[in-house]
């Protein structure tokens, strides 16, 4: 597998999402964990130790899982809780991510009707199935799908825009 800068940037972005999912957005070591995963992965790639090149995703995921596991073990070994005052270890609040969310709130919510918001909240936040939502709100299957995928399209556009802005900011 040829790993160029573009692929590495994609891996970094995706790993950030995965690591944040597992250790939480407030984790101060999030970027370190992503970086450590990439370093190990590149080392394996360089030494030609990725046994199944057709399944690089699973390999990278495994490396990342190990990094997260080691991190958790290290935390358990350390003192239970001691507020740190070192300036260099502030919790990461990636500005680009926050900007994405703010944009999503401003643009996305303004475009949603009350009914659409109720449908989306039921589906995304309240763990209700499509069947339940349709029954409660008196919707047909096509009405549900249209609302869901129209909203998704808006947020997909927001996400793509934020990627473009990030790419422009990096250059």
């Amino acid at each position: 597998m040829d790993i160029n800068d573009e692929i590495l940037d994609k891996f970094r972005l995706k790993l950030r999402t995965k690591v944040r999912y597992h250790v939480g957005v407030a984790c101060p070591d999030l970027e370190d964990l992503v970086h450590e995963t990439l370093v190990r992965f590149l080392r394996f790639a360089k030494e030609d130790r990725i046994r199944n090149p057709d399944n690089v995703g699973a390999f990278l995921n495994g490396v990342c899982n190990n990094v997260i596991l080691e991190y958790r073990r290290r935390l358990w070994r350390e003192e239970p809780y001691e507020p740190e005052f070192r300036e260099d270890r502030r919790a990461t609040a990636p500005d680009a991510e926050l900007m994405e969310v703010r944009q999503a709130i401003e643009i996305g919510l303004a475009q949603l009707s009350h009914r659409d918001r109720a449908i989306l909240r039921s589906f995304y936040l309240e763990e209700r199935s499509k069947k339940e939502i349709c029954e409660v709100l008196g919707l047909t299957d096509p009405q549900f799908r249209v609302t869901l995928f129209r909203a998704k399209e808006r947020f997909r556009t927001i996400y793509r825009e934020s990627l473009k802005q990030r790419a422009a900011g990096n250059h």
Partner: protein
Amino acid sequence: MPFHDEPLLQEELIVKYLQRRLDAATTEAFESHYLMCDQCFEELRASQLLAECLSQSRIDRRYSGEIAILQFTTPVQLTRRAAELSALSQSILEQKDTNVLIDLSRVSRIDSAGLGLLMSCYSHVIKNRKALKLLNPSRDVRELLHVTKIDVVLETYDDEQKALRSFEHS
């Protein structure tokens, strides 16, 4: 595992992933997949933004001087699978130069993930040399904070004015 078969099934899988309702093997398979699949990752991020956006709208933020007061607008549970957990965290991470008071009056339940998040947020605020305090926890939540001894670290108040005044001495 077929991730691209039907858009609604794909969306249901993503929602279950975001709500941590997938079993370990499916989570593993999905993560391995999206690390290589740009389309699925884009779908995941769009859904994540949508869910965060919907949960953010459930958190009301007002200011009293240099103190940000965060309050849920609807009854919530701060549990491992709740989207509000991430939304609350984002809201606190955005408060870089202000003290934070979280009104827990509409929080009916907190689990270990919720407690962990409160402590992470506390740690973040302390690193910024500010303070984070709690307001109006329910009886059950207050008991949990006491049993876990978190109330020793996180000051808890029943009266908003008293809580706001306490920041003057922090």
